[in-house]
């Protein structure tokens, strides 16, 4: 599994804040390994679709289905790892 840089982690956090309009949050407030759905940030499936589009728009990577989505949206780190995998695979 490739290890994402701090810069990429920061960009993913910023993407979450911007796409979901979490106006009271800063990247430092989001833990890199905390779960995004349910507990942790408490996101839901509507948020997931926002993040799918966000990843596509910002990084050009596609989440093809729910199965991949579940793995990718576990945490900021798994999102960053997926971006890295997909962009390096080209």
């Amino acid at each position, binding site marked *: 599994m490739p290890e994402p840089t701090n810069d990429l982690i920061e960009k993913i956090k910023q993407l979450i804040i911007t796409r979901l309009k979490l106006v009271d949050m800063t990247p430092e407030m989001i833990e890199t390994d905390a779960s995004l759905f349910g507990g942790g940030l408490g996101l839901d499936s*509507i948020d*997931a*679709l926002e993040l799918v589009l966000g990843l596509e728009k910002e990084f050009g990577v596609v989440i*093809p289905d729910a199965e991949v989505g579940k793995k990718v949206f576990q945490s900021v780190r798994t999102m960053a790892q997926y971006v890295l995998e997909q962009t390096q695979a080209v």
Partner: protein
Amino acid sequence: MISKGKIAFCFSGQLRERLMLEDLHPLRKDPHFKKWTERASLVTQFDLLNFSLKGEEAETGFNLKLQISTYLLSMIHFHRLRTAGWVPDILAEHSMGIYAALAASEAITFEEGLFITESIGRLLEREGTLRRGGLAGIIGLPLGEIEKICHDLNGHHLSIANYNGSMQFVLSGEEEGVEKAISLALSRKAISASRLSFDTALHSPSLLSLREEIQDILKDIEIRPPKFPILNHWTVTPLRREEVKDFLSQEIGRPVYWDRCVERLIQEGVTQFIEVGQEATLTKLIRWIHREAEAFSAGEHLHFPPCPSELVSEST
């Protein structure tokens, strides 16, 4: 001078989950919480605080209790907003949010709204035991795919219950059909497909059979002219006083067109949407439908931002 757009108060349907009102929850200190839960206790045996602390998903009548909780919390947040100076230009509602919207507009009283919520909730509960149904939220597939799923599972009486925005739909129908629709949606690359907490085929034509019983529930209630207009999501025009009973008797058997409701509000000049409820489901859907929309949920704010109309008067 700050330009002022219109303000829409949006009343959400059934809560997704029970609100946990533990001792330190800020809502418990709010005078409106005390006032409206006490007033409710005079006419219903339902106790919001008790349910919020002890209610279990498996218990009898869980959905009915969620529906009454939704109504009470919407009314509490409505009065919190009004006390903070927020005045709506128009009200919108999603699904069973209509009961609180009607009470907020004073077309019915708080007690009448509670009575309607509880009575229709009991009908739905009975329906769920006679003909078990369900709802599935399907996210990430376009309308054509959703229609195809309904078509491909022809025989399970599936229909679209909520048009919540592009790629945001809710399907309704027989329980087995709903489960199959979820599997099919996931195999066709939905981002998410899952059951919602309902055991009836809400907003499907099968519930139009309850129309007469609902009219009977409403027969002694006098509908007054709404103080704030309520947008009818079928016609996207304000709901007229004489239409209210018909609307209520059909509402649970017809789809919710939330997407066209939001689009109409934007056309009408609404720039600020406030979800008058505990969760932020409508808030997220509004932003999904219109990315630039200003939206927040009352339930997420201990203190509200100042009302734009007050800023206008201060600056002029």
